């Protein structure tokens, strides 16, 4: 049985819906971690049940709370519009229609202060669990249940070997590793899930590797 009982009894969360409130908080919080940089505006595209019943479930409040770093157990979720205003962050919600995605899917676009933007697509799959499915148009699968590294690197021979050597040298075991790329010899994304937490100095070493463009960690 590969599902923890605490994925079923839990999360301890702010109601009303594990998928529409708690899952939405986690989805948005993990998305902001992946985006990494501070942002001045965030846009939420809501698909399916998120769009249809989101308001009544507090999904809007939950998504906004999540990008602000508020957690699933925090009673400030319902105050997220005030907190966004205090921090000078603007936001917008609208409905989107996507093909072949989960009912509870959101497209979250962060506009950063440096003029760049990051777009994350993910869904809340029930019981507070989530799956990030796209980062800037690259397909990924990130559930953020284990410590997870998300890296972008050049699609060249030997890059993965260098990444796994750094992890091995630091006694970090890879439980699962997914790859994807836009095209051959272009930018590829690798998502190792690890059994151990990843220390900041390990992340620095990974980021300094040749041909590694970008590293972030969720744990």
């Amino acid at each position, binding site marked *: *049985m*590969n*599902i*923890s*009982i*605490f*994925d*079923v*009894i*839990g*999360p*301890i*969360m*702010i*109601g*009303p*819906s*594990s*998928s*529409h*409130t*708690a899952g939405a908080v986690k989805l948005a919080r993990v998305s902001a971690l992946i985006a990494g940089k501070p942002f001045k505006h965030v846009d939420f595209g809501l698909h*399916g*049940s998120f769009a*249809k*019943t*989101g*308001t*009544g*479930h*507090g999904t809007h*409040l939950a998504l906004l709370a999540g990008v602000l770093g508020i957690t699933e*157990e925090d*009673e400030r*979720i*319902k105050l997220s519009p005030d907190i966004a205003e205090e921090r000078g962050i603007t936001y917008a919600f609208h409905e989107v*229609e996507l093909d072949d995605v*989960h*009912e*509870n899917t959101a497209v979250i676009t962060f506009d950063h202060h440096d003029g760049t933007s990051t777009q994350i697509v993910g869904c809340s*799959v*029930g*019981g*507070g669990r989530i799956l990030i499915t796209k980062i800037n148009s690259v397909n990924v699968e990130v559930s953020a249940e284990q410590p997870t590294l998300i890296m972008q690197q050049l699609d060249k021979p030997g890059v993965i070997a260098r990444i796994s050597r750094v992890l091995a040298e630091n006694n970090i075991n890879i439980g699962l590793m997914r790859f994807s790329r836009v095209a051959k010899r272009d930018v590829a994304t690798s998502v190792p899930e690890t059994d151990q937490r990843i220390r900041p100095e390990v992340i620095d070493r990974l980021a300094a590797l040749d041909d590694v463009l970008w590293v972030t960690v969720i744990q």
Partner: protein
Amino acid sequence: MYSSIQDLIEQATGRQLPLHRIVLENEMALTGKTEEQVYELLERHYDVMVSSAKKALTQPQQMIGGLVTGVASKQYAYETPLVGKYLNSVMAMALSASEVNASMGLVCAAPTGGASGVLPAVLLGTGEKLGCIKQQLLDALLVAAGVGALITKNATVSGAEGGCQAECGTAAAMGAAAVVTLAGGTPEACANAIAIALMNCKGLVCDPVAGMVQLPCAFRNTSQAVNAIISADMALAGQQSVIPADEVIEAMFRVGKMLPEALRETAMGGIAVTKTARDLTEGLGGRTIGTPGDPGKR
């Protein structure tokens, strides 16, 4: 390791261990936690369950729309329940946790937030009825969680995917297993109780008024809590589900897939599109609800 109710029951019976030991061993192997750590975490979840099941018994909770504000205290104050004090207290506690959940208060999902009233009510009410100590309740909670994990793995616990049968129905199956455990029933009786509870609510749709987890959610948490207990009682009396629990779980998943999108948490069908529900929705700030004729996206 196990991957079905059948596996779980066979292991418990074969090794002459109670079900909760098998679930506990699996959790320890899966997460690397010690027995103490699992119980410590379980107790933290249990404590949140207790507080949500008690909080609204005397304090009505405020929420947008207020459709179920005060329902728990009303049930709790009712002195002449036809079903007796035990079931009435279970009902009041299921309403309490639902009310706390609807007010954006703190609950423990079991298996989801929308169904978070069933298990606390069943556990606490039955624990009190049978004079159980906390350790027994935690063991029963382990069994319930093990059952819920299997349904998560082999079917779904998402209302958007499977309707209310997947949320409150799963909670009822988990609760039924917990009640059989508390009453000292066999692993086999647990399996029968799980199957009967899920059979009793097969096809139950998710049709929240104004898309809010209030109505009929609070009443469904209550009726599924009672379903858990009567299913356990049937199994304890020796009733056989005939259809094995794993097949009933699979059938639940298939029925969920067959439900139109309008009846899967979209507030586009069922109770959510009655005339009164539409009026209420408009009164809540003019949010529009779709009609059953809207094209599905699947």
